[in-house]
């Protein structure tokens, strides 16, 4: 069963297009300097809609993670155990992702440095992260 397709609209199309082109993009506010994901119409810090799209370096740190042993959603039933993580990009935005190529979960810890690795999965391009230097 394929993973659920992203719900693409005019607010977030540039984000998903970026992943197809190999870039993780985020919003940067020209008014107040705030940087954020996921895509929104206005900056939630200064409330203006005066932002530009920037491309992330791909460096991030791990905030937290979970491992699903039961699938809440039927499309992930064949994938358990799978993980979902929260990471903080070097540029500031926080995003939800999957960790890849983890050999030993006992060595995983908050604050560890990660590197972006964009992967195609069921025709969807996703921003996943591996251990930096791995």
């Amino acid at each position, binding site marked *: 069963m394929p*993973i*659920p*397709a*992203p*719900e693409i609209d005019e607010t*977030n199309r540039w984000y998903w297009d970026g992943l197809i082109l190999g870039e993780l993009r985020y919003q940067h506010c020209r008014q107040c300097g705030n940087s954020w994901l*996921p895509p929104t119409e206005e900056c939630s810090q200064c409330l203006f809609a005066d932002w530009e799209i920037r491309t992330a370096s791909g460096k991030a740190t791990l*905030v*937290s*993670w*979970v*491992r*699903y*042993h*039961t699938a*809440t*959603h039927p499309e*992930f039933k064949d*994938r358990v*155990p*799978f993980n*979902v993580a*929260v990471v903080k990009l070097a540029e500031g935005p*926080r*995003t*939800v*992702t*999957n960790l890849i190529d983890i050999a030993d979960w006992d060595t995983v*810890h*908050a*604050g560890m440095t990660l590197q972006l690795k964009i992967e195609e*999965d069921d025709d*969807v391009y*996703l921003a996943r992260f591996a251990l930096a230097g791995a």
Partner: protein
Amino acid sequence: MTAEGLREKYVVAGIGNTRFGDLDGRSTLSMNVEACRDALSDASVEKELVDAVFVKYPTSNFQSMYGQKVAERLGLQPRIGGVWDQAGASPSSMIAFAVMAIDAGQCEIALVTFADNPRSVSRHAYAHALGPYGPYGWFGVVAGYAMIAQAHMEEYGTTGEHLGAVAVACREHGKRNPNAQLRRPITLADHQRSPWVVEPLRRSDCCLISDGGAAVVVMSASRAHQLGVRDAVPILGFGQGQTSWEVAQRPSLVSTEACRSAETAFAMAGITPSQVDVAQLYDCFTIAVLMTLEAYGFCPPGQSGAFVSEPGALQVGGKLPLNTSGGLLSETGMPGLQLIHEGVRQIRGTSTSQVTGARTCVVSNQGGIMQTHSTLILGRC
């Protein structure tokens, strides 16, 4: 009027509920009616005197104007009411809003009610995608709490055994409550053998999914006295705090605005956490109890694991008897009103796990994945 001026001026005059568990697809309107009928009977108040109806919508089936549908089924045309949505924080907050509305002369006697049937009809509400991250597999309320639990473990060294101590205490109290849905107690070893759902949370860390309804009657202490209400329980304090943001966007995953909710409530009540005799803390997942203990000042941040692991700490006779009717983990997964009911029973002296001479009970309600929080302190100063 200062918040302190409301202390002990308002009461929970009556409590009522349906059976909890699998109610075989009974409608939420029907369960609301039964809970309200039972609460009015408990308060010995005639239905016609009710002029406010505050409703939390059924979690598993949002519908517009649901508050009016409940009022219609109750045969009432209230002066004030409607649906209040803070998810699981709604019950305590609706009681607070009822008090404020009565104090402002908008109404006199309020019903606060909730019913849902997720067990027999649909559990979909607990399994939705979290934000736009469905393609990454980010689904389900349990995963949101697991993400917070993992962060708490990383930050403070909290362990699965610490989570387990909460589950063991709630299940022990549920065993003694004949109305509890799950009455089988567990040991810490049982908890540690319980299968992972979303690691680091096990099945025994997760609340029940339950059908059922519950309601309370709120009025002023003077009105209750005038009406001859037998066992009205005073409201000492209340407060709210909203974390609001999705889990991934929070600057810290290990603390919430529950601390502001508690500060407001304790200031209004004029007591400190050390003066609390018994606590009913929202235990949708065990991690929520640990973080609430820290937010409320029962222990310093990061020390909740040690706090709950002291033998007997959460049992009757311990330093903070917890969830004495079994909580969401054992009595019913209903979002919050059952905890308020148990607070009322403790102050009345009628709990199945009664704390001798209990004079103060703190109740926490929280909603979503800790987006909302509400505190209610019941008792007599």
